[in-house]
């Protein structure tokens, strides 16, 4: 509980890659540098999207940037990721996407065909969810000053009036739902870099979550209390954020965690915890106990939601902590990722 109240200090003397990895180091950067400077009621909840009231409804706004290496990877590419990622931040805020902006930072020397391909990928991904890319910007930096192509987006959406997502609504007994198998995106990227000489047929799970979210909103609506897409830092990190923000303890069933065989094999080989590996097409939702099985049934009925599961529940406990229970009754603490996931040999 102490972590929730103690103001975060940013100790690092310089920025390291870990500060962008979405885990504990990113949290320290955001809460130790940005939050104290920008603090305001829209930003303070540090949600995937900020929402505010306008005449006629509640507007959601989110921004994101994409700096993926390699630009194309099994199962997707930076362009597709940029659209899906932004759409998903809106979706898990309970918002229907209205429009998207896209800013491009291009490195001189980038082959025009590569750019053309990514722009086409963005158009296809946007069309898939009926979303206009409304405006954009282009800057070019000198060769060697960037990694080919960076994309920065802003997404605007209208929040469904039936949803009210707040960590303080999360209560003991509520169920934690997960939309499907985890770890595919992070592992696909790690292997696509080819530095580890490990091969597997693992595809990124990048996809829009709009239809899955829309389905549970339609059927469960106000009984959804909290949602987040489990991107960098994986499910472990979003659950820890939930535990901290809701001041609750979360217990998940180790056996319930859906992990594809090859992802599990790669995690065993590299000593990684699939719960800490990034996803680009999965989300976690907290639903009241009474509606959890209904929500699960709905999710499983939507194409792409077949492997949804009830991951665990909110339990009574003195700590804002996430624990995983094994089938034989052992418990372990599931921590946030610290820095990037690094392969281990010991």
């Amino acid at each position: 509980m102490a972590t929730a109240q103690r103001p975060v200090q940013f100790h690092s003397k310089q920025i390291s890659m870990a500060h962008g990895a979405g885990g504990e180091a990113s949290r320290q950067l955001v809460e130790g540098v940005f939050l104290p400077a920008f603090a305001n009621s829209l930003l303070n909840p540090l949600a995937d999207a900020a929402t505010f009231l306008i005449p006629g409804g509640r507007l959601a706004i989110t921004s994101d940037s994409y700096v993926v290496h390699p630009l194309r990877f099994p199962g997707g590419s930076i362009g597709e990721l940029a659209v899906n990622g932004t759409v998903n931040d809106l979706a898990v805020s309970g918002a229907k996407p209205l429009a998207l902006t896209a800013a491009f930072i291009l490195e001189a020397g980038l082959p025009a065909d590569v750019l053309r391909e990514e722009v086409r990928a963005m158009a296809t991904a946007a069309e898939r969810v009926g979303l206009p890319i409304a405006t954009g910007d282009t800057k070019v930096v000198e060769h060697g000053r960037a990694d080919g192509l960076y994309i920065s987006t802003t997404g605007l959406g209208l929040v469904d009036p039936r949803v009210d997502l707040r960590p303080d609504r999360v209560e003991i007994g509520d169920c934690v739902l997960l939309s499907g198998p985890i770890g595919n995106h992070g592992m696909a990227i790690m292997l696509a870099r080819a530095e580890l000489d490990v091969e597997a047929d693992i595809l990124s799970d990048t996809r829009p979550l709009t239809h899955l979210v829309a389905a549970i909103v339609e059927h469960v609506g106000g009984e959804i209390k909290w949602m987040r897409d489990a991107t960098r830092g994986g499910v472990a990190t979003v659950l820890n954020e939930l535990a901290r923000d809701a001041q609750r303890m979360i217990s998940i069933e180790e056996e319930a965690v859906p992990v594809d065989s090859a992802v599990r094999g790669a995690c065993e080989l590299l000593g990684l915890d699939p719960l800490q590996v990034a996803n680009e097409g999965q989300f976690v939702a907290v639903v009241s106990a009474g509606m959890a099985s209904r929500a699960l049934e709905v999710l499983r009925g939507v194409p792409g939601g077949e492997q949804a599961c009830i991951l665990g529940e909110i339990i009574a406990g003195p700590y804002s902590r996430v624990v995983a229970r094994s089938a034989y009754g052992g418990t372990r603490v599931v921590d946030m990722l610290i820095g990037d996931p690094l392969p281990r040999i010991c």
Partner: protein
Amino acid sequence: MCLAIPAQISRLPADDDPLATTDIMGVRRRVNIDLLDADPPELGDWVLVHVGFALSKISAEQADEQLRLLSLLGEASAAQEEVEGYDCGDGE
């Protein structure tokens, strides 16, 4: 102190590639099997892989024996006598 995991040999070293290929639940990693020179693995054998090297062959018989002994745990004391007689190798 050392992370090593069981993997199955899916391709043996060949002239074009001195490394064997192993399969771990559909994940492929090429490994050096020089440390198993005395008793080289065959296709389909299981080996223990650490930092890209096969350290040891996994014995199916020994694994079965371990599981059999484990299955006796918590059973009648008569069965325990047998477990106590269990001692691998010739160290005693």
